[in-house]
C-alpha cells in the first residue's frame, strides 16, 4: 500500500493532521467584489457595444448586448462613472467571468 500523504487543517486553533479531498483543493478562492469591473455572468457573444472608452455612464445605462442561450442579455452599468477600458469587440465570443468593461 502506498504511503498516505497528510496535510494540515486548522479549525478553532487546533491543527489536525488529515487528508484533503480533490474537491477541497480545487475549491474556488473567494475574491472581494469589484463593483466597477463588469464581467460576463454567462458565456456568450457580443451583439453590440453601446459605449465608448472615456464615456461617462450612469448606473443602469446600457453597456452592451450579450447573446447567450438564445437570449439577448442587456448588460447595464453597475455604477456611475467613466468607462476606463473596454476589453472586447463586437462579435467576440466570451467565456463566463470574462472582463468586459472597467468603469471608474
Amino acid at each position, binding site marked *: 500500500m502506498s504511503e498516505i500523504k497528510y496535510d494540515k487543517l486548522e479549525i*478553532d486553533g487546533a491543527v489536525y493532521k488529515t487528508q484533503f479531498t480533490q474537491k477541497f483543493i480545487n475549491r474556488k478562492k473567494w475574491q472581494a467584489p469589484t463593483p466597477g469591473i463588469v464581467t460576463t455572468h454567462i458565456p456568450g457573444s457580443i451583439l453590440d457595444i453601446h459605449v465608448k472608452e472615456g464615456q461617462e455612464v450612469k448606473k443602469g445605462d446600457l453597456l452592451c448586448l450579450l447573446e447567450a442561450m438564445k437570449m439577448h442579455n442587456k448588460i447595464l452599468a453597475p455604477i456611475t462613472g467613466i468607462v476606463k477600458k473596454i476589453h472586447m469587440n463586437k462579435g467576440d465570443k466570451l467565456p*463566463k467571468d470574462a472582463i468586459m468593461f472597467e468603469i471608474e
Partner: protein
Amino acid sequence: MSLKRNVLDLRKRKEIVLQGGGEEAIKKQAAMGKLTARERIEAILDKDSFHEYDMFVEHQAKDFDMDKKVLHGDGVIIGTGTIYGEPVCIYAQDFTVAGGSLGLMHARKITKIMDHALKMRMPLIGINDSGGARIQEGVDSLAGYGEIFFRNTQASGVIPQLSVILGPCAGGAVYSPALTDFVFVVDNISKMFITGPEVVKTVLGEEVSMEELGGAKVHAEISGNAHFFAHTEHECFEQIKKLLTFIPWSNQAKAKPFPSKPPRPEYNIEKILPSDPTQPYDVRDIIRSVADDSDFLEIQQEFAKNIVIGFGRIDGETIGFVANQPSVLAGVLDCDSSDKAGRFIRFCDAFNIPIVTFEDMPGYLPGVEQEHMGVIRHGAKVLYAYSEATVPKVTVILRKAYGGGYIAMNSRHLKADFMFAWPTAEIAVMGPEGAANIIFRKEIMNAENPAEMRKIKVAEYRERFANPYVAASKGYIDSVIEPSETRKLLKHAIEVSANKSVLTPCKKHGIPPF
C-alpha cells in the same frame, strides 16, 4: 389451427422479439463493452427466474414515418424475478432498439412495472441505457418521463428503488435515478448529464469530454449523484445483490436477519484510535471492529469522504452506520458530507434500519466557499434527519464532539436513545485551543509570555472540560464505556430498542431544508 400450431406460432413471435434490435445492433453494443438488456437482467436475477411482461408491446407513433418502423418491445424489457429467492421488479432499457429511446409505450411499460412493485411491496431495479426522449414522439415522450418521475416520488420511502446506469442517461431522463434511493455506475459505461458536451460547447464554449462531464467517476467522486461505483458490469451486479441483502423489501418490513458472526480478529478495536485528538485514523476500521464478520458495505465511498455511511450487521441485524472520518478533512461536516449523511439517515428511518453513529469531529469546515454554498442549510439537513428519525438511534462518541457538531451528530438533545462515550471523548463547546483563547483572553494578553500562558490555559481547559465526564454528570451521556465493550453494548442497545415506539405530531409532511 391446432393447439400445437398456436404454440409454435407463439414461439416464433417470441423468437423475433428476443432478437431486440438485431444482430448488427447487438454487435455494436458488445463493441462498446456493454451487455445487452436481456443479458443484464439474467445476470442480476436468480437463474431462470425472470418472467417478462409486455413482450409484444409496440409503439403507435405515426409521424416521421414511424408507422413503418417496428421496435421490438418498444426498446425496454420489463418483468419480475428473484434475487436470492426474494421477488423483485426490474426493467432494462434496450439500447439496441432505437437507442433505447423513450416513447409513450416504452414509458408505459416502465410505469406498469413500477406500479406493480409498489402494489406488491418489492424493490424496483431500473437499468438505464437510453439515448433519451424519442424525438419523433414529441410531447408523448415527455409525458412518459413525467409519469415515471411521479411514480418514483410516490414509491419513495415505501419500496427501495435502485437505478443502474449502464449507458447514456441524459437530459430529463437523469431525474428518475436522482429520485431513487441508490444509483449504480460503471466506469467508462455510465454517462449522466442534463446537457451533453455538444450543447455545452456550442452554448458555453466549454470543451469537455463526455467522461469528464458526466462519467462514472465524476458522479461517484464530485457530484455525489452515484452511490456505488464499479469497474465492470458484473462487479456492479454483485454490488446490487449485496446491497439487497441489507435492506428490507418495503417500509412495512424489517431487513432479513442473518446468523450472528463475531468481527474478524484483525480489527482490534483497542488498537485503532490515537488518543491525541489531532491525529488521523480510518474510522471504517472502528465500524469493522464492531460489525458481524467485519463486513461493511460502504455507500458513496469516494464522495465527501469526511463522513462515512453504509450498512453492516450487529448480531445479524442490519445497522446503518454513520461516522465522521478524521483522516479526511479532519472529519468536519460541510455541504457535501451533510447532504450525504442526511439522505442516508432518512433512508434508514424510512426502512426500519437502526442507526449507529460514531462521532469524532471538530465542527464545521470554515471558509467563504462553504458559507456561500450554504453550509447553514446543508448542515441543517443532518439535524433534521436525526431529529425526524424514529428508528433506534445510538451514538458512540469516540473522541472529539465539539460545538454544533456535537449537537448535530445524533446527540441526546435530538433524541438519541443511547449515548455512549469512550474515555477518550472530548465533549465541549469547542476545542481547548479555541476555548482557552476566548475565555482566558485577558490573562493571555497581559501575561509576560503570552504563548506560554496560552499553553498553560489550553492545558487547564483540556484537563477540566475536554472529557466525557462533564456531559456524563449532566446525564447527556448515558455511559462512559471501555472501547472493548462497544459491540456488546451496541447489541444490547439494539435489543432493548426492539419495540421502540414514538409518537410524532400529526402532519402531512415536514419541510426539510433541501
